[in-house]
């Protein structure tokens, strides 16, 4: 297909900064590890719950329900395992990139998605740290634009120092400060 629609752009297309040539940085390796652990523990817990329900001595479960619980439980466990495996394979695809005027984040194993957030359009910025993240020294950087909550830009699994310097970079950025 031709690119005739774009021929009247004022700037030489080939000299525009290209989102294809970003310098992608990986997330902390701890992030993948902890994610896998959380997923596996979650699956284990789920399995424990339905197994406990099935084999507890306190009351008897009607014979109709028993196979139902067994099947649904096995299904859920399998789904959990699948989810963990997918997470393990997909997490390495997550990466972020910083340019002079924007931050990007890419993710997705089958459906590759890359989001670019111009720093000029950032409304406010948050560092989020859950209890697990705090223990292993990671942080999630959240960036809000006027695009709304649905389009919150988020980079998870950053080492705290990186997250802090990223935040600092954005806050100190002349675009953010001019924006007021």
């Amino acid at each position, binding site marked *: 297909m031709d690119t005739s629609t774009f021929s009247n752009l004022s700037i030489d297309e080939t000299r525009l900064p290209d989102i294809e040539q970003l310098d992608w940085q990986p997330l902390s390796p701890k992030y993948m590890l902890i994610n896998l652990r959380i997923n596996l523990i979650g699956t284990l817990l789920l399995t424990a719950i339905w197994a406990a329900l099935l084999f507890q001595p306190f009351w008897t479960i009607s014979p109709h329900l028993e196979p139902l619980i067994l099947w649904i439980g096995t299904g859920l466990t399998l789904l959990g395992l699948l989810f963990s495996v997918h997470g393990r394979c997909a997490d390495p695809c997550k990466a972020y990139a910083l340019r002079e005027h924007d931050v990007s984040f890419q993710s997705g194993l089958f459906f590759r998605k890359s989001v670019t957030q111009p720093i000029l359009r950032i409304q406010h910025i948050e560092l989020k740290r859950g209890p697990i993240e705090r223990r292993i020294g990671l942080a999630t950087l959240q960036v809000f634009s006027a695009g*709304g909550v649905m389009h919150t830009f988020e980079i998870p699994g950053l080492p705290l120092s990186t997250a802090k310097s990223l935040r600092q970079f954005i806050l100190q950025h002349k675009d953010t400060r001019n924006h007021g």
Partner: protein
Amino acid sequence: MAESESSLVAAAEPSLKSLRQWQRLSPIALLYFTVNLFRVIFGNVAYLAPTIILLYQGMKNQPLLSLAILLGIALVLLTGALLSYYMYKFRVIGDTVEIRSGVIKKKQLNLPFSRIQNVRLLQPLYYRLTNHVCLQLDTAGSNQQEAKLVALQQHLAQQLQQEIHALHQTTNAAEVTEDNAEANTPVKADEQLLNQRSIGDLVIHGISNNRVWLMLGLAAPFLNLITKVVTDQLEKLGLDLMQWFDPEQQSWLWIGMAALALTLMVMFLLTLISIGASVLSYYGFTLVRSGERYIRRCGLLTRHEVSMKLARLQWVALKQDWLDRLLGRCNVRFEQINAPMNSMQPGAEQGKIMVPSVQQQEAFQLLADAQPGQQLTTTPFQHVNWRFLARQLLLLWLPIAIASQWLLRPDHPELATLGLLPLAWLAAMVLLRWRRWGYAMDQEFIYIRKGLIGIDYYSAPVFKVQQVKLKQNWLLRRAGLCHIQLVFASGALDVPFIPKQHGQLMLNYCLHQAQSSGKSWM
């Protein structure tokens, strides 16, 4: 101009001073809170419907108990309204509006005038007598920042509105002062009329934007009951409806005619209701331009005034569904920041301005006024790739086709053959959807066209983009295609199945414009 502003502000001082202390709203606000609670509950009737149907049987068996429960619910609601009222305090101090509210979850909101994007005055019918208004303050960004002063004396509200606008004007000297003397006068001296809607237009709007169908769908579970009540009533009048439709007594032709007549009558009634609703909410519609601000006024009972600074406009959408297309009309929507859930206001949901059922020519005029540089009408649109079609057909059409034929063919071959008709129709719709999807971009704007029978157009200045996304799965990668999404403050625009280099170029260009233009998105 500066002088007149300062005198305006000065004149506003004495009475606004009275708002410096923490204070409750005028008691009339109790009404507002009650109405609001009821609205929240009955506005969600759609979700509650299954529960209600379930409960209905139980209620019939235990009338006393259910009455008690209903009364209990009403009591809780009223208490809720009372508590909301007592917990709600506000003051206006310096250039800040402060509101304390919340019964269980307490909130304190500090809202500097400079952060306010939009001031709206709203006067429900029950505020008319005491001359109160509800002042709504919209802000950008997060949801929690929305504020409402639920019941203010009208003159106070107008003064406050003026002061907020005045502050914005001193920061932006290019703007023209605005006279907010009387919300009800159609056009003031410094205003330029852009569009007004006659009753005829509103009737057309009622016909083409018939939302009553939804209500009918909701009423479906009660259809049996309704039929019974109606037939009972008709019998009392000496009309036996059942007799009309009894094949023993009537010929098939007669039954067909009766059914047709009945359907037409029901449709006619529904359309009438819809027209009524349209006239009610858009009566006396005027859209005027006052300097760099659009002001929309309309409403028969509750008169709404919405004003929007042109700089805040994110995109203009021309929306047309199939009935609109038939009647040669379309709705023009001026969309600004997606301010979170405001009370359901006709034509102004979320601070947007909608001009109902205008003719094509008027639509283009409005568009040209709002976005002078756009070339929507002359730009050639590019189609999205045919694989869009493949996805829809494979994932939607094919499963339905196979399932329906497989289920019906063995036992009801004639029904299965008849079923091919809607299948063909569905396929045609998919095809139409694909043909309609189009995109184009010039130096300043991105244009998107989509729809089925009617066509929607979007025209958005690219420098206002907030965020961009590019998506690709391995099938798309192999075909050299991608999906892109441009996030604006008013929502996201998607363009699926376009050549990768197009997508990339568009995103690169949008980013470059956003970052280098130096223009503010609001």
